[in-house]
């Protein structure tokens, strides 16, 4: 019995660990998710504790005398209770979910920064249409998406029609979105904490999926302007529409990027 209790405590501890391990979000959208997560983890621990306690009590308080226990076939009142309470809980969780979803899906009317993100096997390309800058990574040097802090970044995410599904995932933004060939998906994020955030493809896309990395570097507005200037001055920026270099394994590289309209703020 003591061993069982210890095991229980260990599992609960590990569960709490898992709860504490959701990264502190770097974006304003992600902070909303952090808030929702707190509710989920609290209710989960409560529900889990109730169920485990009931099961453990049923084992501990079993009938030890010989003879047949009382044959109880059921009880409609208790069925109604344990049907209603979970319904109330999930409706509450659903309400919280909807509220958070509105924050994450909201589009900022501010101009901010527009970036067209193109995912292809096995590389990323970040186009800044307003500034005519384009960043593509190489297998040795994953690309960096440079954005200013505290300004909304409007992303238009796509994959070329001749490619496969990918997903844009930055763990510390608590967000990912699939890049599906022939579709353009738009979303906003506003980074609040300057820093470099690791990102990678999260939808399996073939042999070198694990190496399809990128990072997001959030800098102050002044540094962002300086970066833009340096990119334009260096002339290293590719004009929009230039095919990126071939990825590892001779991947199909988009020669004709889909004509993506630059995302405009406030548009759904």
């Amino acid at each position, binding site marked *: 019995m003591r061993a069982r209790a210890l095991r229980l405590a260990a599992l609960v501890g590990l569960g709490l660990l898992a709860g504490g391990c959701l990264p502190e979000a770097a974006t304003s959208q992600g902070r909303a998710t952090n808030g929702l997560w707190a509710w989920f983890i609290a209710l989960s621990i409560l529900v889990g504790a109730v169920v485990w306690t009931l099961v453990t009590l049923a084992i501990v308080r079993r009938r030890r005398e010989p003879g047949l226990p009382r044959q109880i076939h059921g009880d409609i009142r208790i069925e109604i209770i344990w049907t209603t309470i979970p319904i109330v809980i999930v409706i509450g969780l659903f309400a919280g979910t909807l509220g958070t979803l509105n924050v994450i899906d909201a589009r900022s009317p501010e101009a901010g920064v527009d970036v067209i993100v193109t995912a292809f096997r096995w590389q990323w390309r970040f186009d800044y249409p307003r500034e005519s800058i384009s960043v593509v990574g190489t297998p040795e040097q994953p690309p960096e998406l440079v954005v200013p802090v505290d300004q909304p970044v409007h992303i238009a995410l796509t994959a070329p029609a001749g490619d496969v599904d990918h*997903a844009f995932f930055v763990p510390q933004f608590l967000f990912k979105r699939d890049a599906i060939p022939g579709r353009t998906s738009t979303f906003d994020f506003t980074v609040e904490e300057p820093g470099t955030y690791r990102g990678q493809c999260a939808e399996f896309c073939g042999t070198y999926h694990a190496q399809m990395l990128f990072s997001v570097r959030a800098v102050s507005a002044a540094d962002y302007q300086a970066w833009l200037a340096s990119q334009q001055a260096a002339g290293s920026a590719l004009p929009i529409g230039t095919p990126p270099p071939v990825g590892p394994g001779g991947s199909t590289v988009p020669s004709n990027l889909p004509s993506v309209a630059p995302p405009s703020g406030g548009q759904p």
Partner: protein
Amino acid sequence: MATIADVRREPAEPIRFDLLAWLSTTDHKAIGVLYLTASGLFFLLAGLMAEVMRLELAQPGMELVSESAYNQLFTMHGTLMLLLFATPAGIGFANYLVPLQIGAADMAFPRLNALSFWMFLFGGITSLLGFASQSGAAATGWTVYAPLSENPFSPGPGMDLWIAGIGLTGLSSVIGAVNLVTTIYGRRAPGMTMLRVPIFTWNILVTAVMILFAFPPLTAALALLFIDRHFGGAFFNPALGGSPILFQHLFWFFGHPEVYIIVLPAFGIVSEVFPVFSSKPLFGYKAVIFATSAIAGLSMSVWAHHMFTTGAVNLPFFSIMSFLIAVPTGIKIFNWTATMWGGRLRFTTAMLFAIGLLYVFTIGGITGVMVASPPLDFQFQDTYFVVAHFHNVIIGGTVFGIFSGLFFWFPKMSGRRLDERLGRIAWACWIVGFTLTFIPQYVLGAEGMPRRIADYDPATGWGSLNLLSTAGAILLGLGTIPIVVAVVAALRRPPDAGPDPWEGNSLEWATSSPPPHHNFVSLPPIRSERPVFDERMRRQGIDPNTPGGGVG
């Protein structure tokens, strides 16, 4: 007429292997054994693949296999575990037990039953043959998402073998489901009303109906994919106006019910095990039937929660439906707990695995509610959090249920009990191994480790938790050995079980172990869902149907 039953009825002899008898059998019991054996072998093979993957991931850096081999391994691990182990294992138990539980002599269509087994086996072998081809087996993940599974990205016969083999296995499931529904509807013994049908058989009925609705969309998706690959189709090719999203809709309209197709038989198994080893009836028999049906219905309408991050599906609709499915699942867990409440518990291995299911599946159910919330899913989708969640559900639900069922019904199938001590060792390994393997994976996923990656950057700091997870996986592998040993050892011993080793409730315990070809010599009267229990009470001079149901 030398039937397999005659061969198997020799009591004192060790079970003889007669190839022709097995190839030509139409006996539902022998076919059930074939299903369970074949799916057990696929389980061991897929488990080995998992061990190789876990060893590769134990440390950063590519050490054991290449990226391409790793991708084939996780594809075939998922394929084997879901489609060639979990699904047919449920069908195997159903094949063996449904006719016995309803008091029938065989399935409605015995020859068709044999055909569906051979289709499943050959389909499974076909999907594995890709390993023998030069370009390797399919390497798209078991979800075979188009366009990745289209010709430019997955050339070579491996992908075609997967499509054709799994297509054949899917057809075999549909044939098996038709057979099961017909059997349950048309072959019940007199007195066996629908509301006296044992709860396992009820779960199988619902499972079979789900197979009927879930597998055809998969077959359609695979056929369209095949046309795309070889006959110039463009169903899923966006460059020519096709839709990758359509593939995901078709796949998950199959894929989500599939999760319940593999877990409901296991729920049925523990719904039989709890009452027997608590010496009480199942608490809320009708509530459990209702919950089973509600799970099935809801599971048909939650498929796009696998597509939250596509940005192409309605989030609130699929979110609320997915949340709601937790309610009937909770009803089942509460009813099982109430079944044990105040009972005289016997901690056999079958019961231990059922209790393990209660503890472990509960975590999986709770994390399932988490991923049903789109904002949280935006973080968890395609990470190790989801990997941990579905292994939690499938191991904690299906595998524990199947192990429980194996220890419970092996004496019926062979006349021999499995060694309880080996069973307890296996149980301990699986409980500890499960915790060690998958709790770290929840943490890794929350931190953002994507699934289906062969390697990761040491700078991520994921190394130590991956090492812990690998250690757990090795323990799971070791924990499988006692079960295999117990089965082999039991088959080498003389029979020791007798017709009713556990004091069971349903009709399979009213005949010899193993049962004769015709299953029953005579049947007890069927007045409740526990005819054998009623008969035992009647022999002791107690009327089990006294008003109020109180006995003793």
